C-alpha cells in the first residue's frame, strides 16, 4: 500500500535485539507499527547487550525497546551527556530480587517434595538455612546465586548479601550469564532441589516456574544502594540514538508514547510459549487483544493503517 512507496524514501529503523524474548516481543510490536503505520523500513539486529549498546552509541542501532537501566552502570551518565536519548518508559512495574521455588517453602505434594524451608519469607531469614541451599563445590557453605557480573544490580545484590550477614554462611556465586542462571533455576526446579538466587521478571522463566520473590524492607532510595531494602521497579526505558532523533521524527513521537507493563509482557511471553507462536504472531496477538493500550500511541491515520495490516 502507500507505506511501500514511502519505504523507499524513508530510512530504515534498526531495532536492537539483545537475545531475550521480551525485547524481541516489544521489537516485533514496534516494528509492525513502524513498518505498517509509519511506512519505514525496519530491521532487527541481534547481539549481546554490550555490543548492541555500543552500536546504539555509534548510531548504528536506532532503538532499544527495553533498556534495563540498572543493568548498565553508565546508562545515566550517557543519557545525561546526551550520548543517547531516553524517550520514555516501556514498563516499570517489574520486580527483581532473590527468588526461591515455591516448593522449597511450601513443598509439593504432587511431586512428593517436602518443604525444606517452611515459612521462609524474608531475605533476612536465609540466615541459618545454609544447609538447605548447600554449595556442592564448598559443602560447608550454602550457595546464593548473584546477578550477572558487570550488571549494575550485581553490586547492590552483593551488598544486600553482605548486609544480611549471609556472607558468613553462603558463597556468593556469580552465574556468569543469564542463560546459565536460567539453566540453574530450571534444572533445580526439574530436580526439585532447593535454590536461591537473584532473578527478575517479566521473563519466561518466572512465567513457567512457580518462583517466590523473597521479601525485603520497603524501598527507600537512601538505603537502596546499600542493598538494605527491596528493589524498586526498574524503569525499562525506550531509547534511541542521537542520530535517530532527527531522522524519523514520527517514530520518535510514537516511541515516546510506547508504554506497556510487565503483566502484558508476561502474558505475551506465555502466549508465545503456549501457542509456539512466532514473535510476529505475538505482536499481532497483542495488537488485537490490547487495542486500548496501543491506539493511544498513534494518530488515527496510523491506527487505521495498523488495523488494515492486521
Amino acid at each position: 500500500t502507500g507505506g511501500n512507496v514511502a519505504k523507499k524514501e524513508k530510512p530504515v529503523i534498526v531495532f536492537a535485539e539483545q537475545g531475550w524474548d521480551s525485547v524481541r516481543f516489544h521489537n516485533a510490536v514496534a516494528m509492525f507499527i513502524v513498518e505498517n503505520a509509519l511506512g519505514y523500513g525496519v530491521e532487527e539486529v541481534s547481539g549481546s547487550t554490550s555490543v548492541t549498546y555500543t552500536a546504539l552509541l555509534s548510531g548504528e542501532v536506532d532503538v532499544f525497546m527495553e533498556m534495563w537501566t540498572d543493568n548498565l552502570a553508565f546508562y545515566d551518565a550517557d543519557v545525561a551527556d546526551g550520548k543517547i536519548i531516553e524517550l520514555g518508559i516501556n514498563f516499570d512495574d517489574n520486580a527483581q530480587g532473590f527468588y526461591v521455588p515455591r516448593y522449597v517453602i511450601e513443598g509439593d505434594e504432587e511431586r512428593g517434595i517436602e518443604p525444606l524451608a517452611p515459612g521462609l519469607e524474608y531475605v533476612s531469614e536465609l540466615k541459618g538455612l545454609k544447609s538447605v541451599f548447600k554449595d556442592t563445590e564448598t559443602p560447608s557453605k550454602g550457595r546464593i546465586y548473584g546477578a550477572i557480573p558487570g550488571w549494575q544490580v550485581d553490586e547492590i545484590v552483593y551488598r544486600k548479601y553482605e548486609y544480611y550477614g549471609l556472607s558468613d554462611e553462603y558463597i556468593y556465586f556469580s552465574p556468569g550469564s543469564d542463560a546459565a542462571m536460567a539453566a540453574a533455576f530450571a534444572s533445580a526446579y526439574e530436580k526439585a532441589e532447593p535454590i536461591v538466587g537473584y532473578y527478575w521478571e517479566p521473563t519466561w522463566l518466572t512465567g513457567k516456574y512457580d518462583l517466590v520473590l523473597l521479601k525485603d524492607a520497603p524501598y527507600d532510595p537512601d538505603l537502596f544502594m546499600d542493598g538494605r531494602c527491596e528493589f524498586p521497579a526498574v524503569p525499562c526505558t525506550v531509547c534511541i540514538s542521537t542520530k535517530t532523533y532527527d531522522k524519523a521524527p514520527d517514530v520518535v513521537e510514537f516511541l515516546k508514547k510506547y508504554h506497556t507493563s510487565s503483566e502484558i509482557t508476561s502474558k505475551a511471553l506465555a502466549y508465545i510459549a503456549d501457542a509456539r507462536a512466532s514473535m510476529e504472531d505475538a505482536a499481532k496477538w497483542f495488537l488485537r487483544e490490547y487495542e486500548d493500550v496501543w491506539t493511544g500511541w498513534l494518530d488515527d491515520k496510523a491506527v487505521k493503517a495498523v488495523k488494515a495490516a492486521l
Partner: protein
Amino acid sequence: MSRAWAPLFSVIGDVLLGFVNSIQSVVSLIPWWVMLGIVFLLGWRLTKRARQGMMYASMLFIVGLLGLWELMTITLGLVLASVLISLIIGLPIGILVAGSGRAESVVKPLLDAMQTMPTFVYLIPAVMFFGLGKVPGVIATTIYAVPPVIRLTCHGIRQVDKEVVEAALSFGSTKAQVLFKVQIPLALPTIMTGVNQTLMMAMAMVVTCAMIGVKGLGYEVIIGINRLEIGRGLKSGIAIVILAVLLDRLTQGWFKADEKLKERNE
C-alpha cells in the same frame, strides 16, 4: 583517534564487506538442489566413491530438513570468506615463519594472543570502528582462526627431510622453488591439518559472530540457549557441525585426491 583513522577503517570495512557479500550472494544464488548435486559430485569425484558423495549430499539435505537452509547459506558465506582470508594471510606467514627464527619469535606470541585473548575484548573496539555485523564478524573469525594454519604450515615445512631440501638446493633451486616444489608439497599433509583446524575454529566462531549481529545459524543457537530450548540450539548446532564436516571433507579431499593415486602401490 577513532576519527582520524576512520577513513582507513571504513575502506577496510568496505573491502571486507564487499568480499563477504559477494561470496554470500554467490552461495545464496545456488538453488538447494544444485548445491546438493555439487556436493554429491564433489564427494564422489574426490573420494572416488559414489556412496561417499551420497552421504555428503544427504547430510546437507538434513540441514534442509531441519529448516535451516537459508541460515546455513548465510553462515556458509561468512565462514568461507573468513577461511579464505585466513588461508590467504596464514599460508604466507606460516611459510615466512618456517624460514626465519626471528620471524617466529615475533609471530609466536602474537598467535598465542590471538588464540587466547577473549574475543569480546577486541570485538567491542572492532564494533566501534566497523559497526555491527559481518565486517567485525569476519575480522574476529579470522583473528581466531588463522593461528592453526600458520603454526602447522610452519611446523610442516620445518619437518621436511633436510636431505631432500639439500638435493633441491644442489640443483640451484631458488628459495621459492625449494618452497613450492619441495617443502610445501611434502608438508602438505601437515598443512592440511592446519587448514582443517582453521576451518574448525572459524566454525566455532559462528555463535560469537551472532553476538555482534551476524545472522545465520549462530543466531538460532543463541535464541535456543537463551530460552533454554536445548532442542532448538541442538538443531542449529547440528547444522553447524554438518557444515563443518562437509567443508572439511571437501577441502581435505581436494588435496588428497592426487595423493591417493600415488599410494596405489602397497
